[in-house]
């Protein structure tokens, strides 16, 4: 009779199962910090993303029906009324949650958690149930309602490192996986096991004119992000949902006096 042992193994299996993407710990833990005190809402990041990741030009009609695709968007929130009215900007992109609501949703594993703590999105696996987007509390998943085309010769700009998505496919921020892969590639070329801090820079982070964003591996205590995360202003959006996002925001500071 080895009921007990069986049970314990089952329990162990179950615990494994609960772990995000079945990984005990991540190889890298890519993390982004965004300092809202620096962010001016200039939207340079939005265009940078559009250029880097082949985001379609959806056109006026589709925009009017909220079919736009912007992997990173700026959300605006007013506080107070005239004359003491303040504007708060917050860049909203895929939070790459370690406990992502979207990941349990996908029936075909088109989205899952990979070894680097990234929330993946595999376009050619997606069958378009759109459940992930419904489950996502940050509403950063965008759907290809149509097969989008580019007016000739705009298509010459398309980034060959990124797949152009077809109709019926979900898409979202990938932390510029193509850049991460490239950095790893270079690291391998000069026989480094790991990528150096600052070697991977997603398009949005690269473009940010106020240097509000930082990106790196939070497993590395020396990394810039790890330092930023220690800032007392650090917080994550919708903390109460326990999605443990990989994007840490730094609250806007207020002027003394």
């Amino acid at each position, binding site marked *: 009779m080895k009921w007990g042992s069986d049970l314990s193994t089952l329990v162990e299996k179950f615990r494994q199962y609960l772990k995000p993407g079945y990984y005990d710990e991540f190889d890298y833990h890519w993390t982004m910090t965004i300092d809202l005190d620096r962010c001016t809402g200039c939207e340079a990041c939005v265009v940078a993303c559009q250029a880097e990741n082949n985001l379609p030009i959806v056109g006026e009609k589709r925009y009017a029906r909220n079919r736009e695709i912007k992997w990173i968007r700026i959300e605006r929130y007013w506080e107070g009324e005239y004359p003491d009215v303040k504007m708060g900007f917050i860049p909203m992109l895929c939070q790459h949650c370690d406990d992502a609501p979207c990941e349990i949703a996908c029936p075909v594993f088109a989205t899952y958690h990979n070894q680097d703590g990234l929330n993946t999105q595999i376009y050619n696996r997606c069958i378009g149930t759109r459940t992930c987007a419904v489950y996502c509390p940050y509403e950063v998943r965008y759907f290809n309602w149509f097969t989008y085309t580019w007016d000739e010769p705009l298509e010459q700009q398309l980034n060959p490192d990124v797949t152009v998505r077809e*109709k019926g496919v979900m898409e979202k921020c990938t932390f510029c996986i193509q850049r991460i892969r490239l950095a790893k590639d270079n690291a391998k070329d000069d026989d480094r096991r790991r990528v150096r801090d600052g070697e991977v820079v997603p398009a949005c982070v690269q473009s940010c004119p106020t240097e509000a964003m930082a990106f790196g591996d939070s497993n590395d205590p020396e990394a810039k992000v790890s330092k930023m995360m220690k800032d007392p202003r650090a917080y994550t959006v919708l903390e109460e*949902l326990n999605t443990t996002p990989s994007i840490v925001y730094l609250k806007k500071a207020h002027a003394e006096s």
Partner: protein
Amino acid sequence: MFDHGQPSYAEVNKDILSVMLETGPRYWMLLGTTMSVAVIFFFMPWFYQLIVGVGAAGMNRNAYWGTYLSNFIFWIGLSHSGTLLSAILHITNSPWRKSVYRSAEAMTLFSLMTAALFVMVHLGRVWFVHWSFPIPNQMGLWPNFRSPLMFDVMAITTYLTASSIFIYMGSVPDFAAVRDASTGTRRRLYTIFSFGWRGTAREWHTLGWAYTFFAVFVIPLAVSVHSIVSWDFALSIVPGLHHTIFAPYFVCGAIYSGTAGIVTVMYCLRKFLNFERYIGQVHLDNLGKLLLALSLIWSYINMLELFSSWYGGSSFELEALKFKLTGFYAPLYWEMILFCAFVPLLMFFRKFRWSWNKMLLISILINIGMLTERFIIVATSQPRKFLPNAFGFYFPSWIEISITIGSFAIFATLFLIFIKWVPAISIYEVKETLKPLRRDA
């Protein structure tokens, strides 16, 4: 239990089989219309949508789930009660079931199929739908068994299989009856259908045993199916969907709409196939009572849902609640409350329960209410999630609406084909209910 005097065995056969054996032009006309409606309203828009993409529908960033999914739930819901009811009533062997259950189960079958169709329509890339089945494949990839959608696939396929076996098994002796009453190709066909049924004591015994077994087996299935469908929503953390009450809510709602559906179907059978003899006051009365009970439960759970949203006090839930009760779709919501919670109360009065026309009206109103309930679930929760800046609005496009209409035509078509091929009322079980005839009669 027969309004117009008890028929003889021969009459029973004749009455019921006549529907199948001799068909009037009216039938063909009806079938023709339903079919063409199905094609024009359902399949052609769907085809168009396949070409241009799901964007043809009205869904957007604020509601990735739309009418398609709400209709899916509605049809799944309608599929309930059919098999469930017949199974329960079989076990509690209540005699009045016998003339009702066959068509009820058929209803189950066909609404399930319609529901499955809606999943297809909903998908962005339906041509890859097979990836969501656990089929061993080249890529060595399996579906994600943590996904509620996978639960769905499992539950629905199981339910579909089980209930089709159930209905088939129940009608084997009747196939035999058809076989004996017909000649030529049809006879040959029904010989195959009836597995060469002779009607020996042993066969009867085996059938009875197996049938009861399946009845027991189907009941938990029916309950599970809609619980699982409800988890598609409840497992999300979206305010307005993230409720523990959802499973019972859906199941109860399902049986509710299903029973209402049965009433409607009964009415049609009775009216157009002249089954007045077999479907009588008693059925109506019982179904009425059942409906009444269900409506009360439904209203209760509905209140519970509102309450838990409000009592939870989370700003997200409250916002969703506010939008539901006072937002753009509030009229729909209150319409639902009226049709599903208040109108049924009329059935407290016998004169409503006993009048076919009144009952028909009530049952239809109930199902309209349930249709809107499902729509409200998808249309009011998603556009009010967590980030106010991403709040939005969803309105179905004409494609969605026409496809919704078309789905009813599909259901009708299937049902019409059914009554042509399968005795719409269980012959042998009706006979069971007849008082034994005296020899000299």
